[in-house]
């Protein structure tokens, strides 16, 4: 399935990037391959499952099964309750009549629980500034490599800024991605002030007419007050040079994250006003349901998903596909 990436970014010309046939990933049963043959299978499994539980009776068992599927996907209690209550109300009022109707509405209601804001990434500025934030190990640096590569394919000139001056070899890691993409990386010595390298990075982008500046930051736990302050400072420094920037602040959330993801996102949102979420590591078995809770409760769109460790392993997020994947396996099994 190739995506029209010009629909993913605001400010790029119409162009598609064909998904390279990744033999290895297919062999491994990667997310995409799974999704492809999963689509038909899971829809059937779902319907069979429900047909066997209820015929035209909606009982507690059924609702409990749905609840469990959501909980199992890390959606969390509040959002789960909200979805199930809506469905129950529709069943009570007669709007949902049979198992086919229920399966359809289950997916729709789940998809509707995502924030419906524009999911595109705004790079229609010169330079456009994207700030990447998130907890340690969630995939910030890797995602930067992937986004930069896609932009490059679309004819944009990205420039990366090594704002993680803390973690050992973080600068080297970003530099490696820079050389794979073929774009410039602005960096300082390890241990320096991140705000300083960010300032230099934006100046360099302006001087060299780069199109998109993507800023890496050190991973931080949302509970580390000083580091959250540091992030606010980085945002201020960006504004000093370009008042309306950063145009995008993307929070990476690891799909394996549990309920703490919601607290994380809330704290990051308070500190730097995130514009979207990148849900990473969707090539594993985790369903990433925490993204639904985050999007629903904090009203932030999920913009991209990470599906591996390669430059191409990035997909635009689609709520309907997500809802399908979310129920597929867990209701089919049990």
């Amino acid at each position, binding site marked *: 399935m190739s995506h029209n990436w010009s629909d993913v970014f605001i400010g790029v010309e119409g162009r598609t990037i064909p998904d390279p046939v990744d033999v290895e990933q297919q062999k491994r049963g990667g997310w995409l391959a799974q999704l492809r043959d999963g689509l038909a299978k899971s829809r059937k499994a779902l319907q069979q499952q429900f047909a066997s539980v209820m015929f035209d009776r909606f009982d507690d068992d059924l609702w409990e099964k749905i609840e*469990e599927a959501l909980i199992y*996907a890390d959606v969390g209690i509040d959002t789960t309750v909200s979805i199930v209550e809506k469905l129950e109300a529709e069943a009570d009022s007669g709007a949902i009549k049979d198992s086919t109707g229920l399966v359809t509405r289950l997916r729709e209601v789940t998809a509707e629980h995502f924030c419906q804001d524009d999911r595109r990434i705004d790079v229609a500025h010169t330079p456009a500034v994207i700030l990447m934030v998130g907890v340690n190990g969630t995939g910030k640096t890797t995602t930067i490599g992937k986004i930069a590569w896609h932009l490059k394919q679309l004819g944009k000139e990205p420039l990366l800024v090594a704002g993680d001056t803390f973690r050992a070899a973080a600068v080297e890691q970003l530099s490696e991605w820079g050389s794979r993409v073929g774009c410039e990386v602005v960096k300082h010595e390890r241990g320096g002030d991140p705000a300083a390298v960010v300032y230099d990075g934006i100046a360099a982008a302006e001087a060299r007419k780069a199109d998109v500046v993507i800023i890496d930051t050190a991973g931080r736990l949302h509970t580390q007050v000083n580091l959250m302050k540091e992030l606010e400072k980085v945002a201020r420094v960006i504004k000093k040079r370009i008042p309306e920037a950063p145009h995008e602040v993307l929070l990476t959330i690891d799909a394996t994250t549990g309920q703490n993801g919601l607290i994380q996102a809330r704290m990051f949102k308070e500190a730097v006003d995130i514009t979207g979420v990148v849900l990473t590591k969707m090539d594993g078995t985790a*369903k990433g349901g925490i993204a639904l809770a985050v999007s629903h409760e904090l009203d932030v769109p999920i913009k991209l998903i990470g599906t591996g460790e390669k430059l191409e392993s990035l997909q635009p997020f689609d709520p309907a596909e997500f809802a399908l994947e979310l129920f597929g396996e867990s209701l089919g099994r049990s």
Partner: protein
Amino acid sequence: MFESLSDKLQGALDGLKGQGKLTDKDVERAAREIRLALLEADVNFKVVKQFVDKVKERAMGAEVLESLTPVQQFVKIVNEELTAIMGSASTKLTFSPRPPTIIMMVGLQGSGKTTACGKLAKFLISEGKSPAMVAGDVYRPAAIDQLKTLGESLNVPVYDEGDKADPVDIAKHGVEWARQKGRDVLIIDTAGRLHIDEKLMDEIHHIRNTVKPHNILLVLDAMTGQDAVNVALQFQEKVQFDGVILTKMDGDARGGAALSVRAVTGKPIKFASSGEKLDNFEYFHPDRVASRILGMGDVLSLIEKAEKTIDQKKARELEQRLRKSTFTFDDFLDQIQQVRKMGSISSLLGMIPGIPSAKLKGLQVDDKAFDKIQAVIQSMTPEERRHPEIINGSRRKRIAAGAGSDIHQVNQLLNQFKQVQKMMKQLGSGRMPKNPFQMFGNPS
């Protein structure tokens, strides 16, 4: 942010006081709260089901001990069951009689393996070992550099063959190298991998069979959700790991994944890692995490700690004095010192239930403030400490000068003290709690 579980249980079991027995209906209500709390804590839902059934079975019709409230009784059962699953004591590493002892780290991407290697090395040094490390992550860009940088900062040698070599060979050669160098422990870092990635899972399986590590540790992010069970089972099947390192414990995740993993694999959690400094690494305390998962703060360990530290006799004397409402600055000072013996004020606050740790972290209690209070009290004369009412303007000036403080702070302390005294008077007229720390919000 979270209403604490003890509050919720209190609500569920309200009006139960003095009833003597937990009825089925009460147990159902309380069990529901436990179920929700465990799910919120990311314990796998199947594990939750089994656990709650077990608790219910035990709690139905249980006698409520005289000294406990029904809520406490229920919490006690829950805690006992949790501790039973988590295991009671921390289990140590296995050291080989024929060095080097080999420790291999495995886990998902981003779980914190490389940092944990560095921390474990530092930990081992402090235990008198001379560790070395092997850079076996040839996939993630700059992973080798990261381990080498950590090694340099710890003065621990690192073996690597660049990122073109085969990880199995690197590990094999690394063991030889460590033996020749006379290092007694060898920590092998491996690339993060998905548990469903057959090729890479075969690879660590192969490393395992080649170098036969004495310890294989699964590195698990404390924030992991429901999927922890799948991850652990797959790694168990492929490499039969011996224990778990739970990372990012300085966040406010409840860490329910630890319980799930322990429940489905039977493998102990061996270490808890928190913070980015290399020394935040310690043996895991199953009991502490049991209460963290429940969101009860570390109420149980607080009580235990308090019991150990507080001189019982002094506590009784204090109670006597409170009853007579002759609470003096000496008592105040004494109390502060008792509390501080237990650790820093901020770490104590973290143990108190009902205070969400997220809020707490923002609060950052200034332990220095207590130093100042102590200094002010210490520069009072014994007479002044016993009869604070005699402290007039010139005495205040002298006290301030003696404490290196200013009049304003002395005034503030005197006012606060007056309030404490008043509060104590009210308390003193009623029954005093056996343990003065119940003032901190023990659920009762």
